[in-house]
């Protein structure tokens, strides 16, 4: 087998895929319907504790949960939105109160909360996030880390009015 031709083929395939991704990324926001609301994920609300307090960070920190909150339709960033976060970490189980905390989005609709390292539990290294303040429809997310060793995880909300 010719290694050079294999490389070229790989680059062609990779380049085409990258172009396709770019194209789809550019086209989606331009659709007439606008930005679609994020549906809740399966299992997202498991071990949810309503009313988790807003905290500087959860426990000793070392891991970053980040993300954004936007409005469905025009995709405008939503500032001051309360997002609750919990997970099975090096400092506790999902059901433990001290594993839960909340934070607010900034002027750009972005949030960022330090928490203990998430470790695999129930088969996957995953976190839980909730928007439940009532102004918009409640959404529960359950993002999965690509690698158990990752030190950050992100999740993005697009909310529709309640």
């Amino acid at each position: 087998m010719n290694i050079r031709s294999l490389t070229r083929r790989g680059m062609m395939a990779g380049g085409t895929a990258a172009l396709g991704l770019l194209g789809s990324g550019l086209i989606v926001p331009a659709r007439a319907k606008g930005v679609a609301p994020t549906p809740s994920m399966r299992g997202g609300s498991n071990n949810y504790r309503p009313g988790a307090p807003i905290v500087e960070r959860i426990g000793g920190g070392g891991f970053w949960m980040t993300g954004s909150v936007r409005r469905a339709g025009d995709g405008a960033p939503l500032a001051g939105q309360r997002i609750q976060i919990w997970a099975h970490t090096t400092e506790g189980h999902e059901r433990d109160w001290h594993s839960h905390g909340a934070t607010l989005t900034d002027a750009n609709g972005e949030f960022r909360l330090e928490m203990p390292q998430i470790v695999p539990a129930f088969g996957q290294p995953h976190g839980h996030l909730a928007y439940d303040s009532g102004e918009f429809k409640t959404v529960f997310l359950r993002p999965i880390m690509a690698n158990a060793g990752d030190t950050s995880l992100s999740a993005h909300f697009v909310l529709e009015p309640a």
Partner: protein
Amino acid sequence: MRISFWNRPEPGWQVSGLRAALIWGGLIAAVLVTCWYALSSPLLQWRDPIYILAGFAGVVGMVLLLLQPLLVGGLLPGLEALRGRRAHQVIGLALVLSVLVHVIGLWMTSPPDVIDALLFVSPTPFSDWGVIAMWAVFGAAVLAILRRRMGSRLRLWRIAHTGLAVVIVIGTVLHAVQIQGTMETVSKWVLAALIVMALGRVVAARRVWALLSASKSR
């Protein structure tokens, strides 16, 4: 033809001391290595005792699953024929208990995750396979209890029990290999392969599918 593991005659075969030692040594090594890795997983330091017990009960159940076809097929030296079948019954009971400890322990650790799994709405695909295997284990155990009452329908009994064994093995393997848990990856895949091979060996040797057409023609 050379007699090997795959084609040796079923009953009345002579097993050499070395051969017996190799079979038992290999089996015990596979079991110990699997359990050793699972019990030294770094994840254990962030889990409470009930969660650790529940997870390890799953590992034990998978290990017992390797023994089941070997025992009923009379493939373990010293435990052939009736003794193998008796041991198959005892291990079968232990398998049911390990499944119960696994599920109840996980339920106590995180009730909503187990409820999702039992209702087949879990976000994790391996949960569905685990629940399917669980029901097949219970079904195979109930059949084992009912065996004597089935009278002359033993052919049907064997097809059903073997069919459930196939579901248990497929379900358990698809459950275990997708989980990021306390089992170490290589030992987990080796154990899974051994289980599939053991079941395949016994089903093939017993020609269970031949019973299927025989029972249809009756």
